[in-house]
């Protein structure tokens, strides 16, 4: 995995490099707009971490150029400005996520992992999270390399959770996925969730409930 970090503050750039390299990544750091543009045109990256306030230009223009070329490399925006407008503009231009400074490295790592997972999935059409894999083409799920035979709705639910693995999947999205847009009882989804939970028991993965918000497939922290 090659990561491109565009950040002009040397302290932050250094800590980003140190934090992301252990994830098995090659991290290249640029401090200027112009250098970063050259690097983006030349090489293939799996993720771009983009600081908006660069000394020689706005990061948003760099992002716009990237997307105009049809380059779909995931972009995570880092900025000290946490104005809503900036966020909306960044996401509108095709950024994949947004993190306001100051941020904790743990949070950054989680977001980077999620984006890389999505990037990977785009490449080989396979969802991987912890011991779980999901092959989107064949619909085969494996847990610890053993095929998990799931009924249709549970499969559907697991795919939904794995698409957003590490972050919350809104409950409305899961309900629509499972039951279509019709009215369903409030507990219908919970039934399938608890069935999946039983299957994942002891696998190092769990499904956490966020009341009224949704569910998150996450790794059980020790």
């Amino acid at each position, binding site marked *: 995995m090659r990561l491109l970090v565009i950040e002009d503050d040397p302290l932050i750039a250094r800590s980003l490099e140190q934090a992301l390299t252990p994830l098995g990544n090659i991290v290249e750091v640029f401090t200027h707009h112009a250098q970063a543009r050259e690097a983006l045109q030349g090489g293939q990256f799996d993720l771009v971490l983009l600081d908006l306030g660069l000394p020689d230009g706005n990061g948003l223009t760099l992002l716009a150029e990237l997307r105009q070329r049809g380059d779909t490399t995931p972009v995570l925006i880092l900025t000290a400005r*946490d*104005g*809503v407008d900036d966020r909306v503009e960044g996401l509108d231009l095709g950024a994949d996520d947004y993190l306001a400074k*100051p941020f*904790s490295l*743990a*949070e950054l790592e*989680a977001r980077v992992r999620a984006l890389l997972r999505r990037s990977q999935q785009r490449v080989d059409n396979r969802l991987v999270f912890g011991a779980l894999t999901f092959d989107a083409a064949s619909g085969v799920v494996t847990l610890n390399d053993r095929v998990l035979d799931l009924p249709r709705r549970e499969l559907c639910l697991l795919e939904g959770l794995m698409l957003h693995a590490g*972050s*919350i999947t*809104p409950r409305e999205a899961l309900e629509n996925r499972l039951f279509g847009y019709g009215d369903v009882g*409030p507990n219908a989804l919970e039934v399938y969730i608890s069935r999946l939970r039983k299957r994942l028991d002891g696998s190092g993965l769990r499904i956490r409930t*966020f*009341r*009224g*918000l*949704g569910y998150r497939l996450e790794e059980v922290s020790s």
Partner: protein
Amino acid sequence: MIEVEGTLKSRLAIWLLATVSALGVLLLVEAYFSSQHAAERAYDSQLEAAALTIAEAVQWEAGQPVVKIPSAALQILATRHQERVFYAVLDADGQRVSGNLDLDIAPEWRRRASSQPIWMNEAYQGTQWRLYGRELDSAGWETQDPVQIWVGHTMTGREALTEVLFEQAVTRFVIMVLLAGILMLLAMRVALAPLRRLRQQLRRRDADDMRPLDTRVPEEMREMAETLDSLFTRQRQGREALLRFTADASHQLKTPLAGLQTTSELALKRDSPDAWRQALVEVHGSAERTSRLASQLLSMARLRHAVEANATSRIDALALLHETAFDWAQRDAAQAHDIGLAPLPASPQYIQGEVWALRELLGNLIDNALRYTPPGSVITLGAVCHAQTLELYIEDDGPGVSPDVMAHLHHPFERGDRQDTEGSGLGLAIVDSIVRRHEARMQVESAEKGGLRVRLLFPYLTQHEEE
């Protein structure tokens, strides 16, 4: 944006010119007619005098009137304009006794002249004539027959006199207009002098001079001067508040920074990795607190100095609540807590507000709940539709606060008597000012489960505002 639209002088001049020209046309028309009338009267009385002089010259010889026209009569008629003069004396049968031109006096005219003297305008030989005819009871020795005397002349003299009179009137008028114009220019200079004075004073001012104005202005300009003064006052207050706030903020930031400095300095003097580790933990915690303080100070400054009027929009409060809860539930800081959303009312509920401020408001309340409750606490956000207000609430099952502390929780730097947890106490002060900006109310009370429940009561967006 200042758009220059003509000058006051030209505006006044145009108005004055328009009224003067309208008035001038009326005055000139009137002057023309009165000049004509005056000339008419002057020349008519000459004709009358001539007729009387001729009448006196009528004598009777053998029952027949005989006229010897005195030269005086003709002199009266002859003006200096070389006019052609006409006279005729007719007897009772209409026979011409004497006369100088063969201008026919129609029987109809004679009949009318017999009752009273008449005036008439008549065309003869291609020119206009003014005629006067009157009947005279001229008594001879034997008979008493009426005699009619007709006199007349061409109109050149009248026209010339009319012209002279009219010219005089026009000259007077033009002189008056010129004088009025000059006076107007002078008056405008005098009247606009206070404006010029004010302008010079404002121009001489330093950029940071916010003292009240010191100038004399007429009553009409008082309002403007007072408005300027109050603008200066507000700017001065704003600047002072900004200075005060900057001082407060730097003071607030200095304390944790001093802690960072001393902790790291001490650690650098030590040799044991354990001591370094301990110091790093402290530095990390302090840095986090400082970051939070900085962003809170920024929100505070933004709230105090926000001048963007009408930045508010129609907001679906429930969607915003959902979005904010979702955002916070994902955050690293919330992982040890159980953040959730109670079932919301089914239909969207609209309020008028600023999105960033409301996000900040809810975020601060969630942040407070996360900080001031032990890990594992249940934090619930929800909404209730009341008749008059929409309630957004956040409640926790933490330790809560005592009732007497609750009352002044929202003063800056108040931390509910708790020194054990980190925080500046700015959070609730920010919350309070956002609540006031939205004309909402905040109630802090004990929750059913023993924790704290913060209720925010927003007025609904009224039908009127929605249009």
